């Protein structure tokens, strides 16, 4: 996607007066950044800050897009929970954003997106009749429907079984190409496959981890993927200093 800006964030965040993190984060334009770190370190908080959502804390600092235009309305967001509305059909769920903005739903485009995530046969069904993987694909189509240059993904695949997760990673890599993607994940294998940049968040700051030289999407069993995944895992477990 042309014109996907990067994001720069610098600042410290406090929860109940206690410092949560003090970071300088550089999210490159048009690439996949995978954000890892211990649970509770503030990964979701960073996404929520930039999205303008409630974080339950105080942020002092600043963030902006690298093209210096406002970020409002340029980020679409997908969380671990698919948040599909049970009373709407899959198709209506995909274009819910348009309804919420009071716009024409644009059903034709929603249908094309459903086709892209392989759900066209299920367009008329209710989400309750779909499997977990299908629901997450519907949520991905809804994210695409927003057609925004920046996409924030907060552990969107972590509740899926291993096979479905690998499928979803491939699908997401394909359909989000060219956009600026920030993916929060706790899975080093996911980061090793998908990332252009791997950033590990700790209370002291954000540090970039070396990624394989091959471009994503990397094969799961490629030696460089496996090596990156193993070293990253060691690092996250605190067994290895930063490479």
């Amino acid at each position, binding site marked *: 996607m042309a014109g996907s800006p990067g994001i720069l964030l610098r600042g410290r965040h406090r929860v109940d007066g206690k410092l949560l993190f003090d970071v300088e984060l550089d999210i490159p334009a048009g690439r996949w950044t995978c954000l890892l770190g211990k649970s509770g370190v503030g990964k979701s908080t960073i996404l929520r800050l930039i*999205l303008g959502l409630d974080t339950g804390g105080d942020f002092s600092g600043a963030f902006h897009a690298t093209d210096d235009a406002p970020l409002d309305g340029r980020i679409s967001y997908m969380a671990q929970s698919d*948040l599909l*509305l049970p009373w709407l059909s899959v198709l209506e769920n995909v274009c819910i954003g348009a*309804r919420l903005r009071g716009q024409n739903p644009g059903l034709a485009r929603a249908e094309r997106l459903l086709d892209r995530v392989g759900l066209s046969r299920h367009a008329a069904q209710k989400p309750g009749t779909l499997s977990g993987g299908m629901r997450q694909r519907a949520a991905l189509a809804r994210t695409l429907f927003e057609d925004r240059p920046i996409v924030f993904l907060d552990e969107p695949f972590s509740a899926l079984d291993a096979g479905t997760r690998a499928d979803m990673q491939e699908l997401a890599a394909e359909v989000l190409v060219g956009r600026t993607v920030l993916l929060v994940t706790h899975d080093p294998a996911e980061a090793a496959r998908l990332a252009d940049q791997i950033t590990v968040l700790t209370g002291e700051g954000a540090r970039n981890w070396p990624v394989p030289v091959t471009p994503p999407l990397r094969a799961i069993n490629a030696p460089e993927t496996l090596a990156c995944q193993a070293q990253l895992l060691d690092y996250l477990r605190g067994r290895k200093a930063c490479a």
Partner: protein
Amino acid sequence: MRLRDILLALLIGVGLWQLLVVITDAPHFILPSPWRVAQAAWRSRAIIAENAWVTLTEVLLGLLVGTVLGALTAIQLAYSRTAERLVLPILVFTQAVPVFALAPLLTLWFGYGMGSKIVMAVLIIYFPVTSAFHDGLVRIDSGYRDLSISMSANRWNFLRHIQIPNALPSLGTGLRLAAVYAPIGAVIGEWVGASRGLGYLMLLANGRAKIDLMFASLIVLACLTVVLHILVGLLATQLTRYARGISIT
């Protein structure tokens, strides 16, 4: 509740009643037997039907108006933080006033006709409907709110497309309560002052020592309430099924 169970319960109830009559040997002007009551009901079917119709109309209109007012209030409270802060405490406070105590006043203000009974029913169901629906409107997975904000939704569209459908099962809960309360409201209104309705007929029969007619009116009232309860229950179930995305049957 299945029809078979209802009939069975009815049979047992009538049996116990007859047993009580036999055991206590109560005179028929204190406790008439089921058969006596059935005879009285048949004899007075025209007058019972006429008055039942009045009460039914009061109850249905009260339900309709009370539900609409309650639902609108709940939506307004969910939409506006200010309204929520100001109105909710008042609503809770007014619940401390027993609505029955207002019945004489309502008769004074709205007359002996149906008006005062409808108002009574409305008053009595307004709070349960408002409170149940409001509860459903605000008790929503915060993820939906986050998603809507990220989609640049405005508050009204969020309320309309997400909060309200999501709260339909809670509205159903309120409706179930309302179906129980509305007949109580209407009948109390009739007791305080009326010239028609089942409540009026009960007082009239009592005054003329026609205890069997009084029992017949009471039973018809109970039947009306049960049928209403079942129908509203069906409606509430459909609301829940809709919100859960289960096809309407």
